[in-house]
């Protein structure tokens, strides 16, 4: 009951933040509201007992990406340009997609239900054997690092590739500078 109340209040605040983001033309305000949105999302993850996800959301979503957006804003103008197109078509697309997604949630199993399909396949084995086989009480860590070690390796490779991509794109001296250093 209390959880439902907290979640409802948080989700309403998130909706208000989202409306604020859409309506504001000042990009600085948009970035700060986006950070606020991430913090609210992190709180919801905390209420849902997903502490790992909550930490990541608070650090990346609210912290680091806000700083990155602010440093980008420093290079550009802080006022959003007026849209040239009529907003009706994007609005219709967003409404239809949102409606379809909500319709899709009706077919999902009940939240946290142990009878749902994804909890039937290998999960019982992980939960029973995981702590015995790996000696790690946190089953999430055991699954991510040991049972699903290949997936996590791929994940780290993706992060690495992303970092290398950013380095290659952004570490570029200005052309006049390069000419000067060549002389």
């Amino acid at each position, binding site marked *: 009951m209390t959880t439902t109340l907290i979640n409802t209040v948080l989700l309403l605040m998130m909706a208000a933040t989202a409306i604020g983001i859409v309506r504001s033309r000042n990009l600085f305000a948009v970035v700060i509201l986006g950070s606020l949105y991430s913090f609210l999302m992190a709180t919801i993850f905390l209420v849902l007992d997903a*502490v*790992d996800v909550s*930490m*990541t959301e608070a*650090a*990346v979503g609210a*912290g*680091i990406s806000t*700083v*990155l957006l602010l*440093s*980008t804003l*420093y*290079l550009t103008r802080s006022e959003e340009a007026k849209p040239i197109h009529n907003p009706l078509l994007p609005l219709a697309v967003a409404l239809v997609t949102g409606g379809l997604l909500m319709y899709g949630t009706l077919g999902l199993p009940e939240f946290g239900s142990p009878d749902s399909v994804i909890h039937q396949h290998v999960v019982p084995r992980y939960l029973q054997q995981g702590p*015995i*086989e*790996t*000696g*790690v*009480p*946190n089953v*999430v*860590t*055991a699954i*991510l*690092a*040991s049972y699903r*070690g*290949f997936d*996590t*390796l791929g*994940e*780290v*490779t993706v*992060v*690495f590739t*992303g*970092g*290398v991509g*950013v*380095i290659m794109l*952004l*570490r570029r*001296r*200005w*052309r*006049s*500078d390069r000419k000067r250093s060549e002389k």
Partner: protein
Amino acid sequence: MRGYLVLRVIAKLLIPFILVFGLYVQFHGDFGPGGGFQAGVIVAAAVIFHALIFGLPRTRRVVPEWVVETTVAAGLLLYIGVGIAGMLLGGTFLDYSILLHDPVHGQHRGILLVELGVGITVAGVMLMIFYMFAGRTRTPHSEK
């Protein structure tokens, strides 16, 4: 941010605690919530916090760019290295049970090392992206 005394004092107080919390999340991740990814972003956030308060040039002196660049690859290499160590000891790739005499202890050791690799790479990439973004300036001549 030379004039903001309160911010600088608070930052000096907070940054060590953020770093310790990052280490806690890293090495306690097998018992409590957390793990390499979370620890990596927390450590990166601490350094970015330092850069916001004391300025990028001072942070670059504390954590030089070549160190960050090295960590980007070092974590991934550590992860792959653990996998290859398992192969060299006669097991399969990423089989941690071989790493120590007792399979359960081997698993524990492997998970710890692999999570450390994840943390190092994530912290490095996050910091590197920040350095790249924050190092850009509006005009060509004000750079460097």
